[in-house]
């Protein structure tokens, strides 16, 4: 440690550090981690947004527990909100109204809690897309992908349980639908629903049960999982985007102390502050307007929060099918869209890292991220999933859309049913094409450099466009494209002529792999690169005297003067045509 400028405060800090170190060996940890390097990219802040909004959720949630009462004992409302005066309501709803109207700062905290919960879920979703589309889930980060998926599910659970606590009309309607879904589970559904609700719906237990889950169980799991998640990020070090000097063996960025600390720490305050400001001025979930829950009322046109909306859409699009087998009823119209479908999708998402590794045969460690275009199949699958989600989500609002556009609901449903199958497939094909054409452009750029827009006429009379070599940063980016090849065909027999027992499954895997990964734009070979560089140099040679002359004459870069015949160009036949742009 350097001895310059140590203040008294720092001396105290140092002796505190020593005190702790002598007990827990902390300085050793600090010496290895205080300057840990973190790469910088805006998309790496998405996970941070999730983390910080979760902290805000926790803080505001603790405040709310001081006032909220998880009880459905009936009371007569006698607060300042006139329209509900004298109405019989549950204590839960009563306390939520008191938080909104009587506790100073209560409404602010309620709104901070709801807004930050929304931020949390949105940030997780977008963070997940970032991880997916850049291939950050590949070895060695597959396990963290699973932790992340579990976090995403927990976030939904937290959102749903919280939504039900105020016991207003909206939250009760949501619970009623949940009861219908539980009842539709074959064999155990009826009993399960009685266990969940403590008997028939709505009963008197569900609010207090959800309360325990919402404030203890789910946040506890989330805290534990975030800890594991971040420890893994820490140990594995963050991935980085391709760039000059960045490899799978290093990490380029800023040290934790001071830059990353200040940026990430500051960012927490920015997010917290932003949420608070929004909560101050934008109303969210005005429970007093919806009124208390009673099981025979519903307000038409109410929508669930966006992350549940797609399941609502699935419920609407599913045709009405119910089977009776041996006298027992299976409500496929409810069970498939709300249990089977999400179950399959979540499972597919969780095991995706292994699926991809299996289909590509990729067993390497990856720390440099893929550009989405360079993994066309993965990118296309991701866009396909998003399209599927969006169609279902639109389905969740089909009545609003039908009314808005004056369409019949019947038409909307059939349209969306077809769209649900066709649009994701189209999205897959189109995305893959776009990726491949971007790859083609990259290859051109890498081979022939950047197009400058300046046109030269060669002595032969031929016109060429002058290219400039790409700069080192861009070159590193372009060169980062991995060479993906589909799995090879397995050998039918081994060298001794013995039949390969895995031949059949191997062929099937290779077939799938070929279907998924055969399309790619080859990276330029060394020879091609060399050739390309020479071409760029040759163009430069042609152009050099012109540029010199131009510089000497201080010709304005409007292009017009360049049309004059060259005065002192060595090859007098070389001429420029107006390219209309400068050579910056």
């Amino acid at each position: 440690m350097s001895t310059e400028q140590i203040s008294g405060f720092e001396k105290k800090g140092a002796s505190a550090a020593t005190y702790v170190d002598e007990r827990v060996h902390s300085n050793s940890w600090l010496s290895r981690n205080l300057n840990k390097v973190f790469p910088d990219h805006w998309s790496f802040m998405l996970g941070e947004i999730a983390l910080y909004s979760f902290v805000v959720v926790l803080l505001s949630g603790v405040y709310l527990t001081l006032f909220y009462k998880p009880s459905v004992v009936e009371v007569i409302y006698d607060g300042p909100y006139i329209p509900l005066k004298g109405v019989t309501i549950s204590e839960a709803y009563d306390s939520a109204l008191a938080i909104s109207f009587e506790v100073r700062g209560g409404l602010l905290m309620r709104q901070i809690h709801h807004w930050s919960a929304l931020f949390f879920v949105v940030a997780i979703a977008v963070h997940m897309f970032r991880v997916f589309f850049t291939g950050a889930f590949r070895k060695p980060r597959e396990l963290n992908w699973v932790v992340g998926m579990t976090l995403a599910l927990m976030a939904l659970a937290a959102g749903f349980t919280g939504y039900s606590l105020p016991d207003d009309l909206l939250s009760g309607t949501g619970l009623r639908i949940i009861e219908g879904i539980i009842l539709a589970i074959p064999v155990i559904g009826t009993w399960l629903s009685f266990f969940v609700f403590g008997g028939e719906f709505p009963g008197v237990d569900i609010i207090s049960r959800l309360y325990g889950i919402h404030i203890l169980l789910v946040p506890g799991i989330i805290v534990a999982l975030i800890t594991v998640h971040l420890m893994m990020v820490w140990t594995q070090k963050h991935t980085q985007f391709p760039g000059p000097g960045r490899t799978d063996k290093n990490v380029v960025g800023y040290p934790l102390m001071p830059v990353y600390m200040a940026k990430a720490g500051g960012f927490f305050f920015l997010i917290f502050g932003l949420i608070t400001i929004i909560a101050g001025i934008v109303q969210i979930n005005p429970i007093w307007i919806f009124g208390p829950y009673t099981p025979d009322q519903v307000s038409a046109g109410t929508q669930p929060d966006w992350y549940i909306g797609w399941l609502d859409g699935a419920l609407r699009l599913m045709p009405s099918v119910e089977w009776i087998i041996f006298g027992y009823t299976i409500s496929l119209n409810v069970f498939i869209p709300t249990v089977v479908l999400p179950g399959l999708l979540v499972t597919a998402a969780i095991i995706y890292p292994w699926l991809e590794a299996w289909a590509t045969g990729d067993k390497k460690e990856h720390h440099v991220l893929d550009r989405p275009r360079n993994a066309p199949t993965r990118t296309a699958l991701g866009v396909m999933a998003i399209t599927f989600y969006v169609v279902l989500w639109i389905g969740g609002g089909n009545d609003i859309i039908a009314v808005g556009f004056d369409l019949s609901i019947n038409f909307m449903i059939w349209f969306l049913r077809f769209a649900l199958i066709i649009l994701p497939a189209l999205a897959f094909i189109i995305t893959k094409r776009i990726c491949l054409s971007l790859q083609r452009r990259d290859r051109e750029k890498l081979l022939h450099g950047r197009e400058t827009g300046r046109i030269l006429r060669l002595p032969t009379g031929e016109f060429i466009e002058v290219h400039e070599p790409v700069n080192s940063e861009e070159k590193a980016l372009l060169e980062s494209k991995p060479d993906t090849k589909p799995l090879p065909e397995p050998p039918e027999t081994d060298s001794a002529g013995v039949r390969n027992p895995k031949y059949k499954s191997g062929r099937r895997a290779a077939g799938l792999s070929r279907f998924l990964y055969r399309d790619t734009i080859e990276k330029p070979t060394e020879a091609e690169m060399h050739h390309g560089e020479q071409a760029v140099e040759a163009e430069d040679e042609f152009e050099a005297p012109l540029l010199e002359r131009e510089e000497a004459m201080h010709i304005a870069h409007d292009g017009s003067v360049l049309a004059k015949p060259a005065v002192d160009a060595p090859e007098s036949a070389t001429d420029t045509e107006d390219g209309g742009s400068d050579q910056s």
Partner: protein
Amino acid sequence: MSDEITGNEPGQEVARSDGSTKELRPGEWPPADVEHHLRRTDTDPKAQARAVRQVATMFMLSAIMVVLFIVAFIAIPRDAVVSIPFIGPISALNSAMGLTFGLAIFLIGAGAVHWAKKLMSNVEVVQERHPMKSTEDETELAADIYEVGKEQSTWAKFPIIRRTMLAAMALVPIPFIVSLRDLWIQPADVETPSLELRRTIWEPGMRLVTDITYQPIKADEIPTGGLVNAVPENLLEVQEDEENLNARAKAAVIVVRMLPEEIQSQQSPDGEDWGYNGILCFSKICTHVGCPIALYQQRTHLLLCPCHQSTFDLSDSAEVVFGPAYRRMPQLPIEVDDEGYLVAVSDFPEPVGPSFWEISRP
């Protein structure tokens, strides 16, 4: 967490590709081999001084916001309302507190980020990475330790211990799971959930009353084309008695009136009239997943569920004509009593609400 220590020797140098060298201090990573952009604050002392001022100002403003927050908390009455442009009216206290508190927090963040961007080092540095895989030696050592431990434990030697322990471990969660049984404390008069779900509190002779004022309903008070939301007459008593809303969640009904000749069919097995003079009564709880149904089109006699748009034709036994619901809406047989009020003939012959596993069992 095995990051190597950057214990650079004093004076240690790294070469850069442009031929220059840089001396590293202990604890400093080598700079990345990319162009280093100098900022205004690196070259211009005035710009630097300005940035310093800006950062300090933000921190100071944050403190001022805290003071303003306290002022707002004390001074603004709870019921004052302000109107925010483009957003609408909202509690004045709420927005004043939100803005001052929010800015107090935000400005700390803004100051810190500005400080980092303008004044802290902006040199990107390189740290090495190592494969996640442990070295051969480490793995071997771990395996050796495992072997020693295994032997010392006698785990392999006495299979009977191993097996009984695994069996015991497999069984030990059972008491906890069994204890969950009383998540539903089964009343003595209830055999199974499915029987409970089939019953509502409707019984023969029970009057229908409106769901808000609880007045009995006279048959001739309902106009043709009209719809009345109704509940059983004893609902409030039952609710008070049971201290829950379960009875309401199953017994709520709608009563509609159409011209008798418009009725194509009813749910009675033998064509008997379950209504009265064109007045029919149906469950209000959707057979899809249980939303209360509210929308009725008198011209077409279609009943539409607001949740997922299942549509039922009330003139035709309330069969599903559209949407995801599968079962028709159960009909409640009604008649009028001596005083002309609508009463139930019996409980619902078919179970109300969403389908469940045992619903079609007798």
